[in-house]
């Protein structure tokens, strides 16, 4: 299958401090791809580079053939329309209802009429089973519902790619499992390519097609493959320990 995201010799960091370097990988269309690693290794930072929020120290990131690193502000905004992002906190706008959180994007970047915008918003809210809550404000719904509403907003422009930053963080096991089911449904129904940063092993084994493992010490990718195979077959002891939830010598 065709690669929709290419990360080429990426080097990233803050100021002069390098966090990760020599990152090379491709993500295929329809793949559920998980970025994994210990705390503070730079998983979320890598995601923020991939969605164009941070500028890398070196290297390129290509989304559907368009280089987001070299793009100017206008082109970058065009590339950003190709994907949706669900942030860890949900990042819903508190002064707007769930429906308004979705229609505001449509109003800004499309020529849709108010009726069409309403219909699209309701369609996306129905997808995450929140259509009855369209007039609710984010403060009036639960954490799990906020995450689902954030997914609905990320889907507003029907993107082919979705990025998730720690989707299950702060959720109870049932809500987390429901969210995993929703992610699988999005892939099945829309063939969406999904990139996730997470720590949740249960989620990883139930939804991931492929993972990459980042290592803080070597500042590189130390493993790349199917998590079910890597769990027992990885040549790296720390990866096996991590995926088997065992205490390791390396922390």
């Amino acid at each position, binding site marked *: 299958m065709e690669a929709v995201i290419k990360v080429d010799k990426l080097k990233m960091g803050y100021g002069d401090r390098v966090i990760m370097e020599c990152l090379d990988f491709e993500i295929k269309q329809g793949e559920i791809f998980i970025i994994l690693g210990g705390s503070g290794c730079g998983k979320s930072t890598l995601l*923020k580079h991939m*969605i*164009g*929020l941070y500028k890398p120290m070196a290297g390129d990131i290509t989304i559907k053939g368009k280089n987001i690193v070299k793009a100017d*502000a206008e082109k970058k*905004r065009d590339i*950003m*329309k190709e*994907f949706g*992002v669900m*942030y*860890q*906190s949900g*990042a*819903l*706008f508190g002064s707007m209802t769930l429906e308004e959180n979705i229609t505001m*994007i449509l109003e*800004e*970047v499309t020529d849709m009429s108010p009726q069409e915008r309403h219909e699209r918003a309701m369609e996306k809210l129905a997808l995450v089973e929140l259509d009855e809550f369209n007039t609710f404000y984010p403060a009036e719904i639960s954490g799990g519902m906020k995450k689902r509403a954030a997914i609905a*907003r990320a889907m507003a422009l029907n993107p082919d790619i979705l990025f998730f930053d720690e989707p299950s963080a702060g959720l109870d096991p049932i809500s987390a499992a429901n969210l995993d089911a929703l992610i699988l449904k999005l892939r099945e129904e829309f063939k969406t390519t999904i990139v996730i940063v997470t720590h949740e092993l249960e989620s990883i084994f139930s939804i991931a097609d492929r993972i990459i493992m980042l290592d803080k010490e070597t500042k590189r990718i130390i493993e790349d493959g199917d998590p079910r195979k890597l769990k027992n077959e990885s040549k790296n002891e720390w990866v096996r320990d991590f995926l088997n939830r065992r205490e390791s010598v390396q922390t």
Partner: protein
Amino acid sequence: MKNLVSSFGRNFVGFFQESKNILAFIGEVTEELIFGIRNPHKIKWKSTIYYMDGCGREATGIVALICFLMGLILGFQSAVQMKQFGTDIYVANLVGLSIVKELGPLMVAMIATGRAGSAFAAELGTMRVNEEIDALTTMGFVPPRFLIIPKLIAMMVVMPILTLIGDLLGILGGFFVGVVQLKLPFIAYLNQTIKAIHYLDVMESMAKAFAFAIIIAMVGCYRGMNSSSDAQGVGKAATSSVVSGIFLIIVADTLMTIIFTQLRG
């Protein structure tokens, strides 16, 4: 000694880095303001009205009260001195001119910095913590167009109006002292005030209010947009927006007072 030199060096580099960031921010906001003037339908008018209400209507009471009391204090203080020389009527000149040319715009700006400037910084800082600014960026929005321009326009509209209200209430405070304490005839005090205040003085007051509005909105938004992504960062952004806002207002007031005095000979 080595530490002192390296600390000086770090602060020096930091100062230039901060200056570069401020200039980039001013450039970006100016560009978006020009874009807004050319494409008025792209301005978020609903947000603009919301901020006009919050920064204008809701501040009217406190502005009126403080400016009235300021006029009253000024009237009392000057009445004591003026009475000794039998020049009571000139309380009207002193209060009127001081309020219109200086204290009116300055007091309103101080109140607006404490209310609006810190609110802008806290709002944008919280949005940064909640990743809402990142979300806006990846959804294809231009954050300054969406978040800063409505606040800037709202302040540019309401500050001159608030200042006019403050000027009138300040004069009324002095009027109260003149008529009640000094027993000056109502009409004499009114005529003396009208004679003392030239329309150019009112224009000066409005020009200062307009300039202060830009400073308050820009400082509050800059601090908020650049706050660190934690609760402490939001607190610091709100505090520094007030401190640096007041400092810049005083600097701008000094410069404008010199310029207007020179221009009017």
